[in-house]
């Protein structure tokens, strides 16, 4: 005869376990999730003359490119009449802003310094104090190798890695992810502007906006199996990340279509572009298509044919996560050419 009482208890415990293994602590009820925009706008701003006659990005031209991209991002709003007005839509005086760079690839394929400076310039013009801006990644030495000059303290823009302040002692958890978060994120920023690069990734397919959050946690090595799926999506669901994320400015001045994430000059190209969006999923979907176009141009197989399509992007858009749109019919890609 079945022991109903013990069966009930067992079922209860199993139910507990489902939550435990799934790390239910960070799970939000669907009803509480922010509404997903019917259509997400991604601006792809291109300037074929971005480098002038040299190989380095021209600081003044990238400032213009950024302005045009930001203006285009909010051009549907008639109250936005200048690029600065667009910035004021994103940030407010008193906000502490984190610019999450990507410096793993070194000088060859890190977030461009001129772009970072351009963003910092506009943030300050929008009323953010220099000392309230922190440019960061996981490791100070990696940042220095990528050309960043560290800056800690004073009224200047701050620039350092998580190694300077450590990770939180407690875990943050959602779904398959349980990690300690960078204290830069949790203690020194109110809002996050994600500044990833556009590149191929041998395991995940591509690494752009969503996966750049691997640099926020202490244990990214645990989340590379299965093409980083569903880990990338689950990570971006952590309230500490999701509640702060305001804008992604993807540096595609130099991009990689193969051989990532380490820099491989033979597989990179001067894309001379920026991708800007408030929807990181839509931005990733758009960047993925750009990489696939380049791969086709170079007679390489698609990422799917290589069995490394970035499935995590679709997961990020599914009913459980709703981090953004990845269906092309729900993404409005606005292409602008700053040279025109």
């Amino acid at each position, binding site marked *: 005869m079945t022991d109903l009482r013990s069966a009930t208890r067992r079922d209860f*415990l199993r139910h507990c376990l489902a939550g*435990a*293994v799934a790390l239910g602590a960070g799970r939000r009820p669907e009803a509480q999730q922010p509404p997903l925009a019917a259509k997400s706008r991604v601006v792809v701003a291109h300037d074929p003359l971005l480098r002038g006659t040299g190989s380095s990005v021209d600081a003044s031209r990238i400032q213009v490119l950024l302005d045009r991209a930001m203006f285009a991002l909010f051009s549907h709003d008639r109250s936005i009449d200048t690029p600065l007005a667009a910035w004021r839509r994103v940030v407010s005086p008193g906000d502490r802003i984190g610019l999450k760079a990507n410096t793993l*690839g070194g000088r060859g394929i890190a977030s461009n310094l001129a772009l970072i400076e351009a963003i910092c310039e506009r943030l300050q013009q929008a009323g953010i104090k220099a000392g309230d801006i922190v440019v960061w990644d996981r490791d100070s030495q990696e940042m220095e190798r990528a050309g960043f000059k560290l800056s800690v303290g004073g009224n200047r823009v701050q620039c350092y890695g998580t190694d*300077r302040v*450590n990770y939180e002692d407690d875990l943050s958890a959602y779904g398959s992810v349980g990690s300690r978060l960078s204290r830069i994120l949790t203690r020194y920023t109110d809002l996050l502007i994600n500044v990833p690069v556009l590149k191929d990734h041998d395991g995940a397919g591509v690494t752009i906006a969503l996966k750049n959050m691997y640099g926020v946690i*202490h244990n990214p090595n*645990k989340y590379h199996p299965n093409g980083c799926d569903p880990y990338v999506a689950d990570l971006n669901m952590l309230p500490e990340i999701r509640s702060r994320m305001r804008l992604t400015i993807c540096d595609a001045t130099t991009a990689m279509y193969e051989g*990532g994430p*380490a820099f491989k000059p033979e597989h990179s190209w001067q894309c001379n572009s920026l991708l800007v969006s408030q929807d990181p999923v839509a931005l990733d979907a758009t960047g993925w298509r750009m990489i696939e176009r380049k791969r086709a141009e170079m007679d390489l197989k698609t990422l799917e044919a290589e069995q490394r399509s970035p499935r995590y992007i679709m997961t990020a858009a599914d009913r459980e996560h709703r981090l953004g749109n990845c269906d092309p019919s729900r993404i409005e890609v606005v292409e602008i050419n700053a040279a025109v």
Partner: protein
Amino acid sequence: MLCELVQRQGGLARANRPEGAPLDRRSFVMCALASGVALGELAMPAVASPSSLSSQSGPQAQSDAQFVVEAKFYDKLQNKKIKCKLCPRECNVGDKERGYCGVRENRGGVYYTLVHSRVCAAHIDPIEKKPLFHYLPGTVAFSIATAGCNVNCKFCQNWDISQSRPEQIPADYAPPQRIAALARQNNCPTIAYTYSEPVVFSEFLMDTADAGHEAGVRSIVVSNGYIQQDALKQAYGKMDAVKIDLKSFTESYYEKVVTGQLKPVLDTLVTLRKMGKWTEIVYLVVPTLNDSDTEFRGLAQWVKANLGADVPLHFTQFHPEYLLKNLPITPVPTLERAKAIADAEGLHYVYIGNVPGHPAQNTYCPQCRKMLVERLGFTASSLLIRKDGTCPFCRHQIPGIWHV
């Protein structure tokens, strides 16, 4: 000093816990007492004084170079990629990336361990705490760990070191000869590789075992057994005794709770048996997840058929920890049920662990049923087994290495 490491990272209590399961308040006190007695007897000052580095809030700046040694078990692939051959996961690692363990890194197509001599925890433990019950009972082991692990158990008690990258936690440079010398100096007949997962620091383990043997100190390892056969034979071939955490007897549990596989662990146990290594098994009983009669019976039958009836099997109590905080402590009757099933299947040495004072912590002669080793907490309070390893009452041979 090396032994200050444990305090410097605030991990004394953690490192004091028994292997395989966390402690409740009561057993922590027992553990502390046991360690205290052991340390007192040895007049061990090593763990006493707080380090001058203890005020640091973040990880200390470390020179990376002294810890970096080319890894032993990997294949080079095209485009500066490598395939790790240390554990069954076989990570394909691109340039500048690390494997799942987080402590092995591809630098320009050459794979390196980042934790050679990078000791993040060191302590002198009773060997019963590993637990090894049939190997030099009543002795202490110089116990060390580095950062890193090749699985991610949702119940891990030492997750703050096992699931961290080496640069994220304080560590000292402690080369193999230094470890061997410290063990000898502190009257430890064994060096134990433990706390995190020794598989991931195999190179350091091998070199330290060699240094220890040269100094007359043996080596024991506390491991998940999730390792490839070639690496197993080379690395654990240098060990004098092994404790394997067999975390479940189902693949689904290994997949969902451990993030690993069962089959390679069973293969490890069989190979260790063939190698003649003294091996004991710990099975952490987690309520509702791996506590069915079917699983206990299957496990016991497999152990008897593949390893023999004399292999000690420890059923230990789970305590909520890390990512499994909403399950209860394993009820003692569940552990007793597991033992009863294993006993009934014919295993001779089935223990209940992490329940201080339980009679199933003692060793009994399977022939005359007399108590031969009495244990209190993590100390063996009486050892009656004769020098030749036989029962003093009936002369039955009791398997194990009982005397130094």
